[in-house]
């Protein structure tokens, strides 16, 4: 399968990339690792007229700590997140989620910024970032702005990124002593999650779901129940509330709802155990 023709620009700076994006509107796409975009282009589900290759902007590949948070450059690859001692120490749920993305070959190429920008509800990293309460830093023609993960994912493969903006950095609060768990249910190795969930239990409980609607989403009913003092088991039963899981070849919607209850239950218990043993 061969993608439709496109023009190719290798950006030498974020500014150059943004200028190119601004000049082409929605016909241009940012290329990083290409492991979400190129498969879509090969199927001709995406036919951008211009690819702006940002993969050589090595200044966007970093993992830094400071001020109680972790700052991760958008071009940091999944394999780097998986193996980074700093990420394992300060945001272990992110390292764990990265280790479950695709397979080693995919993790050698795919980037955290690409995964977030793609906005696939079946992706692992966006759910982990939602549970962590991440902030995304984006740069566009109008300058730089910060977007909360809670406000970023708008619909299926749709985010708050404007056509002339690119994601440059992901910031997450250090997990500290918060308990955590990442659960992913797949039928086959290397698959996307049929359903997944990310739980971080710190001062408050944050629960995010994978593939339970058009975007990754917070399980608000579960969080509210926990805040009101419900047991993990009782709260987990509310996991499908407010979600709209798809029915597809992977699973029917009601089976996904069942999985959400089971996985959230497991994740809450695992996160509690992790917190109490610290």
């Amino acid at each position, binding site marked *: *399968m*061969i*993608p*439709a*023709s*496109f*023009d*190719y620009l*290798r950006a030498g700076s974020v500014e150059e990339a943004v200028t190119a994006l601004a000049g082409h509107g929605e016909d241009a796409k940012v*290329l990083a690792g*290409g*492991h979400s975009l*190129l*498969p879509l*282009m*090969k199927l001709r589900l995406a036919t951008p007229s211009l*690819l702006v*290759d940002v*993969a050589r902007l090595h200044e966007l590949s970093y993992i830094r700590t400071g001020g109680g948070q972790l700052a991760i450059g958008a071009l940091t690859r999944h*394999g780097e997140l998986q193996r980074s001692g700093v990420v394992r120490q300060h945001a272990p749920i992110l390292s764990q989620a990265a280790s479950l993305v*695709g*397979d*080693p*070959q*995919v993790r*050698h*190429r795919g980037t955290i910024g690409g995964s977030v920008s793609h906005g696939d509800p079946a992706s692992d990293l966006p759910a982990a970032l939602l549970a962590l309460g991440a902030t995304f830093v984006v740069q566009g023609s109008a300058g730089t702005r910060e977007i909360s993960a809670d406000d970023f994912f708008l619909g299926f493969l749709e985010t708050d990124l404007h056509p002339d903006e690119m994601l440059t950095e992901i910031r997450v609060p250090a997990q500290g002593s918060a308990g955590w768990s990442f659960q992913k249910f797949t039928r086959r*190795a*290397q698959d996307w999650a049929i359903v997944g969930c990310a739980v971080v239990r710190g001062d408050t409980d944050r629960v995010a779901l994978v593939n339970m609607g058009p975007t990754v989403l917070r399980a608000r009913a579960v969080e509210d129940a926990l805040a009101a003092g419900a047991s993990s088991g009782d709260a987990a039963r509310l996991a499908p509330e407010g979600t709209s899981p798809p029915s597809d070849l992977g699973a029917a919607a009601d089976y996904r709802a069942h999985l959400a209850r089971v996985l959230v239950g497991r994740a809450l218990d695992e996160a509690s155990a992790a917190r109490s043993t610290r």
Partner: protein
Amino acid sequence: MRVSVTVNDIAQEHDVEPRLLLVQYLREVLGLTGTVVGCDTTSCGACTVLLDGESVKSCTVLAVQADGGRVTTIEGLGSEGHLHPVQEAFREHHALQCGYCTAGMVMAVVSLLAENPDLDERAVREGLEGNLCRCTGYHNIVRAALSLSGTGDRG
């Protein structure tokens, strides 16, 4: 667009369309047909090659993305009568049936051992999850990889 890639230690330079996939470049421009296309959807790993030392699925990389890089294909590992240790281990343990996945499997094992020379069975199985063998001959493939774990013998 002009691309310069070092493939199996030989510098190559060609004008290519931006949409040319790395696997097409290797097979159709350079004639290196040891790398095969399987699923063509980033799943099966048959097209796995090393890009700057790391395993990648060459059906999901554009040739222009490899510009300036170093690519190793199955042809670059050993030679007739002088197999690479991973190829030798595959031969010794009969780690193939129909052979279609073999080149990709070998390249994936080379990359896996480079990242972690001490592998247990679980690490091998997880490390090869990006490579499918439709003959389901995984057992001997895992054996071959395990035979090299901890030996430092990975070429």
